[in-house]
């Protein structure tokens, strides 16, 4: 019994200590940001690898999620004769929840894991040490551009996910189950509030983006420089990143839409 309590205590202390390390790490990166902003090339290069290379998976997933949403909405709403409201359900679900959350989960799996692996490999092949010895700060040249690129890429990817999701819903609703096209678009337009729905979704995506790249970059930098250590760090990025997205989504939803 005492051993179990001790074990839980140790784990808790280790978790808090690691969170503290990660916070200091982020703080050190943020201090170097002014130096990154005057080198936009570093950011555009990372925007390509974190944003553009994640685009295909976002387009495909967004389309299918929108189509499935429309189909499920139709099956439920048709019983009440309310099938015309499909677009309302599709658009609100995508903007408020599914857009930022699924984009976040896909971003953690695709871009987050790639970031961790890349930085972990740079560490194990002494590239980060090499930069240090060349009097170049890896925090500024390697970590900060990646954090900034993730921060910028996530809202753009989320907007694209929502857009193709709405189009996927349109395909099923209008061409699949025969909802009138004008009804689909007009309800989608009138029932959405710019600030409550779209902006809150975008705020969520910015928070998710920052947290995912923070976890990914920290795990890569903190990884044990062996093949096993790198594998574990990559796994941690995907698991912790995904759980953070889901947990933060609840918190942000409660703050934005609820009375909690």
């Amino acid at each position, binding site marked *: 019994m005492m051993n179990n309590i001790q074990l839980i205590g140790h784990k808790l202390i280790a978790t808090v200590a690691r969170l503290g390390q990660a916070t200091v790490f982020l703080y050190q990166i943020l201090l170097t940001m002014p130096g990154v902003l005057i080198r936009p090339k570093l950011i555009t290069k990372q925007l390509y690898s974190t944003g553009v290379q994640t685009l295909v998976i976002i387009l495909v997933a967004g389309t299918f999620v929108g189509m499935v949403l429309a189909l499920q909405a139709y099956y439920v709403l048709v019983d009440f004769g309310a099938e015309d409201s499909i677009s309302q359900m599709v658009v609100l679900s995508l903007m408020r929840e599914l857009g930022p959350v699924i984009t976040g989960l896909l971003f953690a799996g695709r871009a987050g894991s790639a970031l961790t692996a890349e930085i972990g490999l740079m560490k194990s092949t002494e590239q980060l040490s090499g930069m240090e*010895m060349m*009097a170049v700060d890896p925090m500024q040249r390697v970590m900060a551009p990646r954090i900034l690129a993730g921060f910028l890429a996530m809202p753009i990817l989320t907007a694209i996910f929502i857009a193709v999701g709405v189009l996927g819903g349109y395909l099923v609703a209008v061409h699949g189950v025969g909802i009138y096209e004008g009804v689909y678009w007009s309800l989608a337009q009138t029932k959405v509030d710019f600030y409550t729905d779209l902006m809150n979704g975008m705020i969520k995506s910015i928070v998710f983006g920052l947290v995912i790249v923070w976890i990914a970059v920290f795990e890569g930098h903190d990884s044990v420089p062996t093949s096993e250590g790198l594998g574990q760090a990559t796994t941690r990025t995907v698991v912790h990143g995904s759980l953070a997205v889901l947990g933060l989504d609840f918190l942000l939803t409660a703050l934005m839409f609820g009375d909690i």
Partner: protein
Amino acid sequence: MSFSRGSRKIFDDISLDISRSKVTAIMGPSGTGKTTLLKLIGGQLKPEQGTITMDGNNVHQLSRKDLYQLRKRMGMLFQSGALLTDINVFDNIAYPLREHTDLDESMIRSLVLMKLNAVGLRGARDLMPSELSGGMSRRVALARAIALDPVMVMYDEPFTGQDPISMGVLVNLIHRMNQHLRLSSIVVSHDVPETMSISDHIYLISGGKIVAKGSPEELENSDDPWVQQFIAGKADGPVPFHFAADPLMQDLLS
């Protein structure tokens, strides 16, 4: 200076001098902390006790900015080369020049080509690091280490895993650069003949202590059994080949 990793003492109150414009070798068996010593000198690790000074500057008392200024005057050749893998050979050597100087691109191009010519790889400037052999990587890394014309260069196991031709070329390069550029060089290695052939002074390290020091001739003529075992590469001697264990027969029959 003393340094530990966890409860393991890596260096136990050692003291050594690196002479200006000379080649100083740090030798010893694997795992004695030779690379750690270079990281301590470069300010990447901090000693738990004692000081490391370069040109009168206490490396570990410097602010980050001053440490980076000092590092511009140091070059380091990493064991793995540590080339940046997402840019080609030319850009790897141009990297410190672009970061720390205001030279225009045509001047940088000339300097990079001269450095590459010095290591015999001017023709490989467009290759990516993944396309280079181990020996070529080490030579490119050497060109990068001297890109900013440092006053001191640290070589971490420069000869490990090299074929005889690459090894000969590297030995020659280090020797020539020291002669022509008047660099202070620290060579960390356990390749005895190659290192002794270019060194002015040698420190032998084992068990966290300096066990011998002197010129190559002095060490060759030393009657210390430890020194003789290390230089001649004998299995029998004061340094055990086997990790501490029970006798083999006892282990087999148990």
